[in-house]
């Protein structure tokens, strides 16, 4: 059983999602059944991911050859500490989002719960696979689920945002295939560590082609991750999506970031000979400008959800900086920040939606509107979320940014990293305090009778579950940092990965 643990996170949402399309779960009247099933599926996924994490902590990397076709020929799933951690992150985010949707937003469309499962299927698959074409397939699975989820709840704004999102991602998928075709034509393999072996042995003319293929891949991953200049779709898309969907999308950009970390550390990493770290000179400036533009966007936003969308862009830029530093310490800091930023931006999208519900037609726009009914409750949630994302102590954002600052080693790196991250944090604080004062303190005096319903206990529990990550990640900061340290060391240890796959013995 334990051998098959690696594929379970993919099988559970696949089978569960398909079953939810069939009776007794199908049909508009059976929504209660679907809710119970969705909750049970998430419990199963969280249990599996925790088991997977424990397993990889004991055994290091876990290899799973699908259909028992051994590497480099078959499709290989590979769970190391990094992918196990991200699978668990995905399942927790999914649980929070689903709990929130139980308040009623899951009934706006027929297939909300199955689609959430398919979305997570694609996300887990992208984290666990060790084959580039398989990665493409899982990307498409998560994308087609996200196209439909983005339409959940309907409305003009959603259709317009979805049009851009779908077209951009279809072009991205074509580019992905072009890049894969190029790399396969040159190296003759799609297995990530095998490609790392082959890339180092290429002739100079073939190196150029491999470089072209690798650069095209960066465009694809950059589009998913919302790296400059491919980030313009993100704020409008996230602001248009319904709250649980936007919160779930918080992990989608991180899938792109994960792929950049994985592919450009293993395939084009230190071991790649002439092509070693070929994209780092590109990522440096783009990461910095991504942060700057995201911060400016946050200051200029007219509603809370666009503001949070821009903060997602800032967090992607910060993660790319930790990638560009190219040390295991920086990667470890980035992984900690990734955990924190995914959960907190997810929670903030949910909080923005609750605020919007209680402000009538003004929604979450920064205008004077009626007083929020549950000011104390929502205010506390908002201030915790805002302090965390801005990086104020004692919450996890502070810790995350602190270890990123520490991981910058040389003087030039320190100048750039310190000034950019600290300045953008200051601007984030300004943007968020402006948002908070308008939303909570500036209300019209005349009309104080608020007829809006209170937020449901499901909504509170979903948001609190995600927000709880903030104090918890600070409290258990030591052990989490230790874990991400190990995960980063393992990620950077390419010869070990090649050894696990036994590629050298097989190649001879």
């Amino acid at each position: 059983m334990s051998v098959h643990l690696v594929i379970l996170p993919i099988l559970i949402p696949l089978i569960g999602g398909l079953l939810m399309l069939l009776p007794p779960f199908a049909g508009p009247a059976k929504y209660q059944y679907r809710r119970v099933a969705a909750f049970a599926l998430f419990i199963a996924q969280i249990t599996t991911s925790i088991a997977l994490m424990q397993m990889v902590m004991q055994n290091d990397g876990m290899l799973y050859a699908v259909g028992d076709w051994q590497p480099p020929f078959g499709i290989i799933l590979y769970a190391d500490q990094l992918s196990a951690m991200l699978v668990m992150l995905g399942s927790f985010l999914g649980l929070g989002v689903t709990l929130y949707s139980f308040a009623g937003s899951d009934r706006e469309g027929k297939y909300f719960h199955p689609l959430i499962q398919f979305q997570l299927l694609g996300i887990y698959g992208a984290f666990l696979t060790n084959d580039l074409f398989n990665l493409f397939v899982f990307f498409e699975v998560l994308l087609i689920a996200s196209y439909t989820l983005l339409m959940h709840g309907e409305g003009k704004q959603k259709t317009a945002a979805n049009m851009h999102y779908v077209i951009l991602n279809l072009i991205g998928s074509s580019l992905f295939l072009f890049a894969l075709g190029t790399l396969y034509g040159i190296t003759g393999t799609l297995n990530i560590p095998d490609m790392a072996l082959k890339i180092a042995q290429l002739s100079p003319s073939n190196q150029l082609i491999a470089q072209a293929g690798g650069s095209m891949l960066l465009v694809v991953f950059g589009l998913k991750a919302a790296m400059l200049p491919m980030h313009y779709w993100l704020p409008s898309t996230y602001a248009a999506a319904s709250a649980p969907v936007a919160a779930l999308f918080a992990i989608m950009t991180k899938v792109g970031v994960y792929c950049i970390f994985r592919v450009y550390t293993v395939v084009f990493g230190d071991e790649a000979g002439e092509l070693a770290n070929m994209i780092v000179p590109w990522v440096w400036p783009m990461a910095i400008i991504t942060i700057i533009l995201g911060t400016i966007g946050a200051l200029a936003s007219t509603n809370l959800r666009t503001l949070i969308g821009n903060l997602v862009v800032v967090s992607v830029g910060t993660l790319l900086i930790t990638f560009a530093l190219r040390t295991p310490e920086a990667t470890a800091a980035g992984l900690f920040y990734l955990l924190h930023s995914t959960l907190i931006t997810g929670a903030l999208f949910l909080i923005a939606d609750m605020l919007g519900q209680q402000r009538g037609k003004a929604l979450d726009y920064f205008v004077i509107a009626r007083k929020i009914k549950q000011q104390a409750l929502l205010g506390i949630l908002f201030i915790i979320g805002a302090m965390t994302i801005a990086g104020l102590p004692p919450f996890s954002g502070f810790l995350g940014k602190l270890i990123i600052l520490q991981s910058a080693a040389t003087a030039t790196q320190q100048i750039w990293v310190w000034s950019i991250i600290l300045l953008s944090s200051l601007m984030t604080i300004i943007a968020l305090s402006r948002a908070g004062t308008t939303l909570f303190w500036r209300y019209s005096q005349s009309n104080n009778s608020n007829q809006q319903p209170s937020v449901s206990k499901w909504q509170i529990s979903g948001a609190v579950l995600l927000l709880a990550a903030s104090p918890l990640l600070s409290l258990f900061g030591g052990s989490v940092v230790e874990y991400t340290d190990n995960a980063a060391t393992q990620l950077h240890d390419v010869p070990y990965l090649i050894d696990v796959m036994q590629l050298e013995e097989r190649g001879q």
Partner: protein
Amino acid sequence: METLYVICVGVLTSCGVYLCLRGRTFSVVVGLTMLSYAVNLFLFSSGRLNLKDAAILGMSESYADPLPQALTLTAIVIGFAMIAFVVILSMRARADLGNDFVDGSEPADSNKFIKPNRDKA
């Protein structure tokens, strides 16, 4: 054969890219279709082109790489589903937004690009 193949892929890609840059959904959808055709041909060629080799070991001295064929097949299936989705979505956008512009509204300066004597004809 290689030259012909390269020209096909190149023309399809450039037509696809050009059409994707247009303002209305119909041309963008056609552009995406062309791009996916180009990508399928390109993937197929990544295993090297040859005319008479079987994809089975032992049937002839040289053999064709079977993997690009499998990749192309997967890419065709996925591409087909995605194009079907984008067709439905653009019809929905036409209904919801009242026009067929990708941006959801007619650009303010679009009359600059349309010949003024079009109505007379």
